[in-house]
C-alpha cells in the first residue's frame, strides 16, 4: 500500500518539477525583476524600486493600456456578435451537419495564424482584391488603403480568434436540453423571450469562456497589430516587445507584464466565480 502511494507520487513529480522550475520560476522572477532598477547598459541592478510601476502611469503608457483594452473590447464584442449566432446555429444542425461543419471549421483553425493573416494582407493591400471589388462595383472611387489601419487590425483580431468563441458557444449549446426551450414556448413565451430566458442562460458558460478565450489573447497578440496595423496601433504587447528587444529595459517590460497578467488573471478568477466551471468550456 505504501509503495504504491510512493509510486503514484513519482508520477506527479516530473510535472510538478517542470511546472515549478519553468512556470513558477520565470513568473516569480518576472515579479522580482519588475521591482529592480535598470542598468545603464543591458542588465539590471539589484536595487529595489517602484519606479517601473510609477512609469506606467505616464500618459503615454496609460494610453497604450487604454488602447489595448479598447481594441480587445471591440474585438471581443465583434467576436461575440459573429461567433455566438454561429455556435448557436451550429448546435441546431443535424448530427451529420455538425460533423461536417466541425470539419469545415477545423481547417482554418489548424491553419497557421500567419498564413491566415497573410491572406488579409493580400486582401487589404492598396489596389488589392477588396479595392478592385469595391471600385468595380462603383462603391468607392479610389483605393481605400485599408492595410496598416485600425480597422484592418480589428478584422485581423476577430478573424484570428472568432473560432474559439464558436467552439465555446457550440459546446455549451450542444449540451443544452432543447426541450427546455420548447417548454418555455409551450408556457407562452415568444421565441425572443424563450431565447433570452432559457437559451441565453444555458449557453452563458460557453459565452463567458469564449470571451475569456478571445479577450486574453487579444491583449497580447502584438504581431497582428504589427503586420496589419504597421505602426499605427501600439498595444501593450508591442510595448513589452519594444521595451524588451529595442529599449532593453527589462524591468519596465516586467512591470508591464505584471500589470497585464494581473488584469487577465483577475478576469479568469471572475469567470470562475461567475460560471462555477473549472475548465474553460470549448477548449477542446
Amino acid at each position, binding site marked *: 500500500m505504501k509503495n*504504491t502511494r510512493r509510486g503514484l507520487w513519482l508520477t506527479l513529480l516530473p510535472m510538478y518539477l517542470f511546472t515549478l522550475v519553468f512556470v513558477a520560476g*520565470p513568473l516569480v522572477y518576472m515579479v522580482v525583476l519588475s521591482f529592480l532598477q535598470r542598468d545603464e547598459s543591458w542588465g539590471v541592478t539589484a536595487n529595489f524600486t517602484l519606479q517601473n510601476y510609477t512609469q506606467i502611469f505616464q500618459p503615454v503608457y496609460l494610453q497604450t493600456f487604454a488602447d489595448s483594452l479598447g481594441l480587445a473590447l471591440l474585438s471581443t464584442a465583434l467576436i461575440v456578435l459573429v461567433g455566438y449566432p454561429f455556435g448557436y446555429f451550429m448546435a441546431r444542425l443535424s448530427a451529420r451537419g455538425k460533423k461536417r*461543419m466541425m470539419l469545415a471549421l477545423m481547417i482554418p483553425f489548424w491553419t*497557421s495564424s500567419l498564413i491566415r493573416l497573410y491572406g488579409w494582407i493580400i486582401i487589404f493591400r492598396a489596389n488589392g482584391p477588396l479595392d*478592385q471589388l469595391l471600385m468595380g462595383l462603383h462603391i468607392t472611387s479610389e483605393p481605400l488603403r485599408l492595410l496598416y489601419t485600425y480597422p484592418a487590425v480589428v478584422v485581423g483580431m476577430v*478573424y484570428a480568434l472568432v473560432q474559439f468563441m464558436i467552439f465555446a458557444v457550440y459546446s455549451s449549446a450542444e449540451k443544452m436540453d432543447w426541450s427546455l426551450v420548447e417548454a418555455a414556448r409551450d408556457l407562452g413565451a415568444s421565441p425572443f423571450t424563450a431565447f433570452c430566458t432559457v437559451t441565453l442562460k444555458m449557453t452563458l458558460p460557453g459565452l463567458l469562456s469564449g470571451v475569456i478565450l478571445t479577450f486574453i489573447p487579444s491583449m497580447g497578440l502584438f504581431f497582428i497589430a504589427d503586420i496589419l496595423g504597421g505602426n499605427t496601433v501600439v498595444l501593450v504587447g508591442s510595448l513589452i*516587445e519594444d521595451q524588451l528587444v529595442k529599449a532593453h529595459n*527589462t524591468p519596465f517590460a*516586467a512591470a508591464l507584464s505584471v500589470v497585464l497578467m494581473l488584469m487577465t488573471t483577475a478576469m479568469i478568477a471572475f469567470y470562475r466565480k461567475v460560471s462555477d466551471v473549472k475548465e474553460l468550456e470549448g477548449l477542446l
Partner: protein
Amino acid sequence: MKKGRFRFSYLYMGLVLAIMYLPILLTVIYSFNESRISSVWGGFSLTWYRQLFRDEEMFHALWNSIVLAVCSCLLAAVLGTLGAFGMTRVKSRLNGPMEYLSTLPIMIPEIILGMVFLAFFGLLGLPFGMLTLILAHTAFCVPYIFMLVKARLVGMDPSLAEAARDLGAGEVRVFFDITLPLIAPAIASGMLLSFAMSFDDVIISIFVTGVNVNTLPIRVYTQLKTGVTPEINALCTLMLAGTVLLVALSVWIGREKKHAPKL
C-alpha cells in the same frame, strides 16, 4: 416560419465560412501567380515554388520547426499524462495550486510568457537556441495534454481499474492494460493540438530563440514584416496542405475512437 429561420442560419454560417476561407484561398491562388505584384494576375506559374525549393534556409527553418514541435509535444505528453494520472490518484492539498500553475501558460497572454522566458533563461545562463525553444514550448503544451487527459480520467469509471486489480493485475499492469488504452485518444488529440500550437507559435519563439536558430513561423513573420516575396505564398500553400493532412489525421483518430467499441 421555422423553415425561414433555418434558411437564414444556413445563409449566415455559409457567409461566415466563406469569409473564413477567403484569405486562405487567396493565398493559394496568388502562389501560382506569375506576377511579382500581388494585385496583378500575370498568369499561372510555378516560379515561386521553384524559388522556394531552392531556399535552403527555409528548409532549415522547417526542419527546426518540426524537431521543436515533435520534441515539445512528446515531452509535454509524458509530463502531462503522468501528471494528470497522478493528480487523479493522489489526494493532496498541492493538487489545486499545482493544477492552476501548470495550466497558467495557456491562460495568460503569450507575450508575457515570451518575456518571462527570455528573462529567466538569461538568468539561468542557458544558451538560447533549440533547448530554450523546447523548454518554452513544452511549458505551453503541457496544459493542453494535462487538461484533456485529466477530463478523460475523471470521466473514467474507477471500478474498471479495480476490476483489473481484482483479477490479479498490479498497479503498473493496470496502467498499461486499462488506463492507458482508455486515455490514449485524449493523449493523441492533446498531442495533435500541442503540435499545431508549437508549430504555429511566433510570439514565444521570437523571444527565446537564438541567433542562428530560425523556426518556420519566425521566418515567415520576419518576411511579412519586411518585404513580402511571393515565395511566401508558395510556402503558405504548402503549409496549408500540411494542415489539411493534419486535420485528416485528427478526423481519423476521432473516427477510430468512435468505432472502437463497436467493432
